[in-house]
């Protein structure tokens, strides 16, 4: 019983985490930028939605505006910062540090405007409980998280395999030089990628705080866990990242059955560090 409920909770958390992982992977595999500021975009989405709801806008409007804001922010980070750095032939290290800077800026602007208090969404329907299989209880918010995440996953799969832009992005990801000479214009593609990934990360960025409340400094842990999912799932593999995110969330939830809870995050990272030592290319990556 306990195990089943933990399992279901793990799937909910994992789905949301999976979208973070997919969106990060999207950026990383195409631009090769370790986009830590993604955690800031994730945080901002929730706050924008909260503000609009607090001003009486209906939930779908709030959500769409939040997505639009994140999209714009993502594109801005790319054109205003990453593209400039690339033109200056900055090393990865430089880009990464700049990205950390952007994260600090976003988090602290949010903290200055909204304070560091935990903000709770005031949506009574979200807390309504459904009893699904057996005695497992899930809230509307949790069910919504799963549905939206799966929809986002399907949309990404369709986008990247079924549309021209998606294929172009994959081409740029696999070989930027080749893409350049075939006039795919990687720089413009990079802007699209950042915009799309930012829109995508807004989905869990709004849904997760719906359940757990908003905090300005809370983006980095999900992002790091998501990067672990991305690496373990094999960089560039959408399904790999999504599945591994669920696996990791399950691991953190289910490990409670066997070990004291204070170690659950530590264990995740411990397994990861060991994993990196022995299989650095990921589980789903093709063997060479």
């Amino acid at each position, binding site marked *: 019983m*306990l195990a089943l*409920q*933990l399992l279901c*909770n793990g799937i909910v*958390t994992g789905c949301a985490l999976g979208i973070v992982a997919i969106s990060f992977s999207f950026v990383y595999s195409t631009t090769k930028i370790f986009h830590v500021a993604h955690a800031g975009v994730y945080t901002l989405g929730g706050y924008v939605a909260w503000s609009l709801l607090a001003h009486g806008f209906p939930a779908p409007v709030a959500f769409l505006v939040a997505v639009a804001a994140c999209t714009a922010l993502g594109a801005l980070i790319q054109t205003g910062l990453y593209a400039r750095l690339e033109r200056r032939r900055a090393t990865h290290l430089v880009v990464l540090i700049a990205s950390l800077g952007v994260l600090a800026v976003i988090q*602290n602007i949010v*903290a200055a405007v909204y*304070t*560091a*208090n*935990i903000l*709770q969404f005031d949506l009574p329907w979200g*807390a309504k*409980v459904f009893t699904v299989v057996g005695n497992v*209880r899930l*809230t509307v918010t949790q069910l919504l998280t799963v549905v939206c995440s799966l929809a986002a996953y399907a949309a990404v799969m369709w986008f990247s395999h079924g549309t021209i832009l998606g294929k172009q992005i994959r081409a740029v990801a696999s070989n930027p030089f080749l893409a350049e000479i075939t006039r795919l214009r990687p720089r413009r593609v990079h802007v699209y990628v950042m915009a799309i990934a930012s829109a995508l990360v807004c989905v869990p960025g709004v849904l997760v705080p719906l*359940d*757990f*409340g908003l*905090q300005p*400094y*809370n983006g980095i*842990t999900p992002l790091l866990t998501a990067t672990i999912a991305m690496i373990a799932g094999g960089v560039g593999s959408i399904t790999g990242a999504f599945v591994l995110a669920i696996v990791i969330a399950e691991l*953190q*939830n289910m490990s*409670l*059955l066997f070990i*004291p*809870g*204070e170690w*659950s*995050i530590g264990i995740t990272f411990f397994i990861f560090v060991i994993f990196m030592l022995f299989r650095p290319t990921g589980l789903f990556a093709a063997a060479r």
Partner: protein
Amino acid sequence: MRHLLRYGIGLVAVMLAVTGARADTVRFGAILPLTGPGAMIGTQQMRGIQFAVDKANAAGGVHGNKIEVLFEDNQAKPDQSILSFNKLVDLEHVPMIFTAYSGPSLAMAPLATRKKILLVNAGAQADKLATASPYLVNTLPTIGDEVKVISKYLISEGKTKGAILYENDAAGIAGRDDFVKYFPEAGGTILSQEPAQFGQTDYRPSLLKLADAKPQVMLVSITAGLLQMAQQYKQLGMKFTVAGTTFFADPATVADPSSEGFVHTQVRIDAPPELEAEFKAKYGVNMEFFVRQYYNATQIVLAVADKLLSEGKPLTGQSMHDELFTIGKFNGLIPLEFKSNTATVPLDIDVMKGGKDVTIKQMSAD
């Protein structure tokens, strides 16, 4: 080396400029976490102090002197606290400093003893604070006192099987350790305990695991995320009693239907409605627990300063410390008495009912 000289000279010049002193005001310090994960509470504490000081200044200050409190941000970190402490004491010559949070307060305690600076803590409740330094006074009881009381109450209600949900930080762990000590002493048994990470608000896994042990009561020792905890408890359909300490008095949690029936000890700190209204008008938020606590502590400090100045004595850490214990009893927002470094304050047992905290009993730690 050229760089070193150039930047070094510039830096020293700027820092000297920072430390220009101003006269004819009475100055105190406050070292609070104004950034980072502790900022939420730190900001409330800062407002409590500032609110009290502004009111006092509007009423003519202490013995005709304007009061100023210099705020330093320590990010709840001990090393920043030491720097801030030395800065306030050394450059600003403050005799008294407000502190919060157990780690920083404990780190500053030896310095306070050495330099004879009065530290006033109105927020942290770690048991070690009671004995850390003769110059560290606490205007609220330690967690140990509160947990002792709630344990006694729970046993008297026939709840003998306990579980603990605690936050994995100094305050949360202190509460857990106290419950592990006092609950069995009062006659109960502890079946299970689970931590939650500070700042993380997904309590479901921990709650589920605790519920699996089938306790009659769960002690919750967390400082943030109470509302989320309550909602998740409700959503998971849990029925056992939830008990806690003063931390529970988060208005949003009390108002939420999911906290119906939660029971907790409450350090009594009442604010008259007109004061609350005034605060709300000024800051746009409610006068929360820590605001009141620091408002109250500031009133105590100002009373001590007023007494000293009107007797023509100098304001030093030593004199303020001595005067505080000479006066002994204070009537601020609540009556409290300093028999030791930790004030003796009456404790209520409150139950959350219909969105309100209802006091059902008054008990004392001894």
